[in-house]
């Protein structure tokens, strides 16, 4: 690339931005000049149209096309439900479905419980901010970064050689034999789940902690005066008080878990029986060139996420009615 090329490219960028600004300006100008009658509708249309257009081209159209592709084989012939049959019968594919279920059961449950317990224990303690930051920090690390870090923790070298993995170094220091953490099924899936929990606990803790602080002090004091024990205060006052936050946290983590890809891909790439739906979807569509199978898995994933989203929306709507 020469300087001339570079200047050319910069001019293109600036030109592009200028055209964008001009188009937006023109639309605003025209809307402003729209006839008095029905001006509201004109304005509404002008402001909603771009978002709608992007939604249709970037979300709705791909969703429809993906669903369509799920019924085709690799040569583009219509094969009915073959791809779905494959997903529920081929041992490898069934394994990914089972793994995904295991992930969705463990991650939201454990990270929310651990986050909640932690939030309550450090609530109003000295150095609360510091303790919060400690647990929240993994949240700031990308999933790929976390995957690489933990891959080192679980690293395996055969017996007699220097262990660079923390876990095996500890095992060997206590006189044990090094374990192939990431190569042993089903242990490896649980170890990958631990990484996701490590990341998501911080999120649960921060949201729940904020919500706990929102519970009126009077309620807790009243419960105390009535002679409620700490556990009774927790189950009868705190939990109902943070119900909405709990639902949001559990559903958000569940959705994130259903879609988990980065951790599996960086740590085992789906080998050794650890694959999950999102990872298998990518592998089938882009590596194995079986776009139909990939699309079928994408549709399955969508169907799995859907009920959670609907539940989340309904709970939030109900909450709004109460207020």
């Amino acid at each position, binding site marked *: 690339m020469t*300087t001339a090329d570079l200047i050319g490219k910069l001019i293109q960028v600036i030109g592009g931005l200028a055209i964008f600004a001009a188009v937006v300006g023109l639309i605003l100008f025209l809307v402003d000049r729209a006839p008095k009658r029905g001006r509201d509708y004109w304005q509404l249309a002008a402001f909603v149209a771009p978002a709608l257009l992007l939604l249709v081209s970037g979300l709705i159209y791909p969703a429809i096309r993906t669903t369509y592709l799920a019924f085709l084989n690799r040569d583009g012939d219509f094969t009915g439900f073959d791809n779905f049959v494959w997903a529920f019968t081929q041992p490898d594919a069934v394994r990914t479905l089972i793994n995904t279920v295991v992930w969705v059961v463990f991650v939201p449950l454990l990270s929310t419980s651990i986050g909640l317990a932690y939030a309550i224990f450090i609530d109003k303690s000295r150095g609360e901010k510091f303790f919060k930051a400690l647990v929240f920090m993994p949240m700031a690390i990308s999933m790929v970064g976390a995957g690489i870090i933990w891959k080192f923790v679980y690293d395996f*070298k055969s017996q007699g050689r220097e262990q660079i993995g923390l876990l095996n170094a500890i095992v060997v220091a206590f006189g044990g034999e090094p374990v192939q953490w990431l190569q042993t099924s089903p242990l490896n899936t649980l170890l990958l789940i631990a990484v996701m929990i490590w990341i998501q606990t911080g999120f649960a803790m921060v949201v729940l902690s904020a919500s706990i602080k929102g519970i009126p002090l009077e309620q807790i004091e009243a419960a105390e005066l009535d002679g409620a024990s700490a556990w009774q205060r927790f189950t009868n006052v705190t939990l109902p008080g943070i119900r909405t936050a709990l639902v949001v946290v559990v559903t958000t983590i569940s959705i994130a878990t259903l879609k988990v890809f980065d951790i599996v891909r960086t740590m085992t790439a789906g*080998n050794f029986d650890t694959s999950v739906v999102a990872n298998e979807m990518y592998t*089938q569509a882009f*590596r194995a*060139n079986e776009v139909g199978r990939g699309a079928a898995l994408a549709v399955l994933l969508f169907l799995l996420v859907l009920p959670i989203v609907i539940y989340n929306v309904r709970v939030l709507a109900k909450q709004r009615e109460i207020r």
Partner: protein
Amino acid sequence: MRSPHRRYTAPIALFAVAGLTLAGCTGDIAAEEAADADCSEYEDYGTFEGEEVTIQGTIVDVEADRLIASWTDFATCTGIEIDYQGSRDFEGNIAQLAEGGNAPDIGIVPQPGLVQLLAENGYLMPAPAEVEANVDEFWSEDWKAYSVFDGTFYGAPMLASVKGYIWYSPAEFEEKGYAIPTSIPELMELSQTIADEGDHLPWCAGMESGEATGWPGTDWIEDFVLRQAGPEVYDQWVTHEIPFNDPQIVEAFDAAGEILKNPEFIDTESLISTPFQDGGLPILDGECSMHHQASFYEVNWGEGVEVGPDGDVFAFLMPPMSADDPIAVTGGGETVVSFAEGDAITAVMAHMSTDTFANLRVSEGGSVSANNGVDSANASSPLLEQTIEILQDPEATFRYDGSDLMPGAVGANSFWKGIVSWLSGDSARQTVDTIESSWPS
């Protein structure tokens, strides 16, 4: 009051700094002068003043610079302006580009499967007669066959790489009196000798490679299929004329398993968790003696490790079944195909299929060509020199890396996974059955 201009100063300054910094990244190329190019070689092509030919391929960075350098004289003398764009995504994009009519004039395609796909979809022009004549003259039939589909020949091979090398320490072999094995039984005998002497394992390997974990194992299997069952069976296996679970393939797994699954010969425990880049390094520490990996492993030895027959490490080709058998090689290479027709394009393609071009490219270093007009002395390292000699051996059988030729669902997925489960304890029979069931119908 603050001047309203003030708030523009910072962004403008930032922009200027960014611009200057980016300008620093660009190497302003001085116009290449025709003065010092020897044009007598290129007179026959004629001149095409001002015509432009676009080329695209997967070759990037240093390799791209070397490639461009090899045709600079040709371009200057004929007046053709060659515009090369390298992209790692070329393989994934080229079919879409061609469908949209945006393909380059010439593509350097890294695997025959893709050439076939492009040809079947009618994107490719048959190779010009000049190119075919050159290929008949300079390449073996094995190589030419990889560019012929439905009787039409599409393009000349360019660079080549050889798999199936076995790396070893020349010093160790000399000290212990080991001879380079000339047949597979000798290789097994040598492995046993090293194992019996006791202080270290004969073999080491690494199969971990992220999502491609297991691929180094596919090279083992391919090498054994080609040597044990022969090139015909190899071709049938790759094109699925015989099923993946054919008994001859099971035999190849079993033969490879005698080394890969034998705890006396190799550290079977850490095999699948060792990154393939680190697989051979224990040779340097004297912890193992042999490592099976392609010629490109040369770059993995690290700074200060001398690769050569008298250096720290060197490689010999995996021997044939018996010492009298002709050698058989697996490997890879690129094919130069065209998406458009024109005299300038023909000239460029014809030039790229000559021994002149191959020698220029090989002299630039880092790679070899299977063109038999290449002088092996031009190679940039002893290993590449040896590779050229192997490729030019008229008796040698050459076959493309099988997993690259198989459909992606097998060659880039279930074959790798199969190797992993095979090394983790599955039987050869189970493994080939699973892979066979994944072969797309």
